[in-house]
């Protein structure tokens, strides 16, 4: 047969057939082998070592796949959800409404029965707040069936930090952190007089502004009034909200914020604090590991954001740091749950905490924590998080609020103007 005829009769049709056959989606789940997708570059080695050990102990093969950064990971998981190619175990990065969408579309297994088995043995080992992040209660705003939908592998909370060496340099007691806002401002003035730069945080990432503002909103008006604002029962023009916004005006007036912090990403803010270019920072418990890498000689202490008033407790954002969800449509649901039970047992949690300097989700494995990490762990009871609230604010309103705070910090708008803008948008959103 001449070569040209062979190509036209057999080779090209075969090639076309193979091309079409190759378009089939790759199986992401295989019976007897667990595939786990994660995004944690800093924990990849530790997780891989644990997965290998689990395979050795049980014979169940665990395959880890790392997709980073977290934005790319979140997009990959969304795309996999739309094409039904989610792995056995994965994480949902985002807010509670995102997790709710995954659950209501049948992609996340309810772990409530596994959690409550053996008199709730698995459930009891976690920090209550860690599990709350992945729990949906009766009457939740997303209409998700009551249950536990994720397994926290570590916890986190966000507090303030101060540089002990800079405190000493300014003549302040490095072992006494300011507890109230007035003390904080007083200490800052002393630091400023000594030529020391003030406060840094990655406020170019607006969620960190939201976090800081929420801490003080809870302190000034209490949880009920904050949630009533989200419900539309209290306006943002309420004097308590103006008081919260005025804090940012005071920060500007006192020249507390390090130059450029208003558009700074948190990584740069972390570098600034680690280099001793700021006396205070606002950052999460993950910073212990980050600062260790950036400047092992940094001496810093942890403090709750200094309270403004006494009659409401200061609440900080916290809860589950990283959580894994089990694919409800996987043929390995039970095996995946067993692996996660093993991963969150005390010995593995201690190992993970040691390797990564993150707070373990298992509260029975806190024994060997370094002092700064222990300081973060001791405040887990003060944590709260939007994912634990019965309802959350409309994201468009939240964005307007956070951008408004940036406007106050650059002296462009007053607290009253921002409050009025946000309230106007809130009304518009409610009308829609």
């Amino acid at each position, binding site marked *: 047969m001449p070569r040209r005829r062979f190509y*036209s009769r057999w080779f090209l049709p075969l090639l076309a057939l193979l091309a079409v056959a190759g378009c089939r989606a790759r199986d992401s789940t295989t019976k007897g082998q667990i595939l786990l997708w994660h995004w944690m570059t800093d924990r990849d080695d530790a997780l891989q070592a644990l997965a290998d050990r689990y395979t050795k102990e049980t014979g169940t093969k665990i395959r880890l796949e790392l997709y980073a950064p977290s934005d790319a990971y979140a997009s990959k998981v969304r795309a996999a959800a739309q094409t039904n190619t989610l792995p056995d175990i994965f994480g949902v990065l985002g807010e509670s409404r995102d997790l709710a*969408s995954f659950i209501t579309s049948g992609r996340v297994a309810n772990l409530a029965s596994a959690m409550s088995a053996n008199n709730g043995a698995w459930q009891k080992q976690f920090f209550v707040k860690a599990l709350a992040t992945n729990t949906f209660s009766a009457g939740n705003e997303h209409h998700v069936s009551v249950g536990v939908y994720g397994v926290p592998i570590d916890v986190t909370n966000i507090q303030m930090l101060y540089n002990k060496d800079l405190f000493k340099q300014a003549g302040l007691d490095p072992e006494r952190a300011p507890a109230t806002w007035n003390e904080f401002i007083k200490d800052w003035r002393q630091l400023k007089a000594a030529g020391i730069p003030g406060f840094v945080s990655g406020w170019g990432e607006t969620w960190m502004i939201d976090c800081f503002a929420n801490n003080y909103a809870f302190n000034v008006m209490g949880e009920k009034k904050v949630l009533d604002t989200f419900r539309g029962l209290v306006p943002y023009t309420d004097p308590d909200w103006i008081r919260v916004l005025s804090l940012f005006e005071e920060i500007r007036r006192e020249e507390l914020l390090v130059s450029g912090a208003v558009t700074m990403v948190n990584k740069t803010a972390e570098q600034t604090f680690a280099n001793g270019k700021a006396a205070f920072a606002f950052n999460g418990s993950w910073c212990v590991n980050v600062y260790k890498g950036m400047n092992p000689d940094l001496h810093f202490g942890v403090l709750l954001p200094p309270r403004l008033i006494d009659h409401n407790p200061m609440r900080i954002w916290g809860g589950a740091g990283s959580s894994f969800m089990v694919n409800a449509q996987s043929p390995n649901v039970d095996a995946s749950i067993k692996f996660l039970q093993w991963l969150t047992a005390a010995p593995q949690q201690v190992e993970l905490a040691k390797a990564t300097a993150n707070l373990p989700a298992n509260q029975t494995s806190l024994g060997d924590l370094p002092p700064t990490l222990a300081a973060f762990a001791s405040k887990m009871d003060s944590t709260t998080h939007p994912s634990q609230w019965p309802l959350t604010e409309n994201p468009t309103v939240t964005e307007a609020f956070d951008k408004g705070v940036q406007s106050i910090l650059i002296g462009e708008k007053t607290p009253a103007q921002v409050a009025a803008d946000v309230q106007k948008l809130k009304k518009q959103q409610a009308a829609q």
Partner: protein
Amino acid sequence: MNWPKAKDTFTTYLFVAPAIVLFTLFSLIPFLKVFQLSVFDWDGISTQMHFVGLGNFKTALFRDGAWWTSMRNAGVVTILALSVQNVLALILALIVDREIKGKNFYRVVFYLPPVLSGIVVGLVWNWIFDGSHGLLNYALSAAGLGRYARAWLADPKTALFGIAVIHMWKGFGWGFVILLAGLQAIPRELSEASRVDGASEWYIFSRITVPLMLPVFFLVSILTVLGTMQIFDIIVSTTNGGPGYHTEVPITRILAAMTGSSRFGYACSLGILFGIILLAVSMVQMRLSKWSSQLT
């Protein structure tokens, strides 16, 4: 149709088929899908989508102030790029087009910034513009102009212009290369003959170079408009749209709608509106380009 002709036609389609399949799968279907999603309220995950008709477009056009602020910001950067960046590119192209020493070296150097990643460029300029330890502030202080030092990208008065400077620094190399190619395509005899006739350099430039370069100018301006309006990576690595909405651009708003508030349908409608605006601008420019080529 006889068999050899039919076979010939079939073979032709067979060869074109892979390209058509790939184009359909990766361009046409996603393109049509964006139109479909733009009339739904959808969070990107749920199996349920709510039909909202033209509601998303209505919101974008009449209620979303941040969207129009982002369009205005992108417009300001585009105007600066069209003028400052392209004039700089033209001047450099004119210089390098002459017989100067080391012209190949300059060609490589001028073309380097566009090759660099926008994220890397943003990070480098972040350091230059830094308020506390930035190179620019250091230079100003050294020159006795310390009173002008500031956090350039966090100050509402300078943030957008700072972004424009970074964008123009990164982008002028493209215009430079295209303009240089255009200049080199002009027959040298024209300018040489004019010089023999006693024409000045300005006369040669304004009466010979500019008219012959008009189609190239339009090409560069179309590419500049399309490239600048879609600016994104530099913003993400420097200001993230802040402070406030001062450096928000259309792509950051589309991304905010999609991942910030899980409004995929709304993000698609913003994408379509943005596409229509870019298409309209490009069409006007192409019309002008045609008109200019008729003149020459």
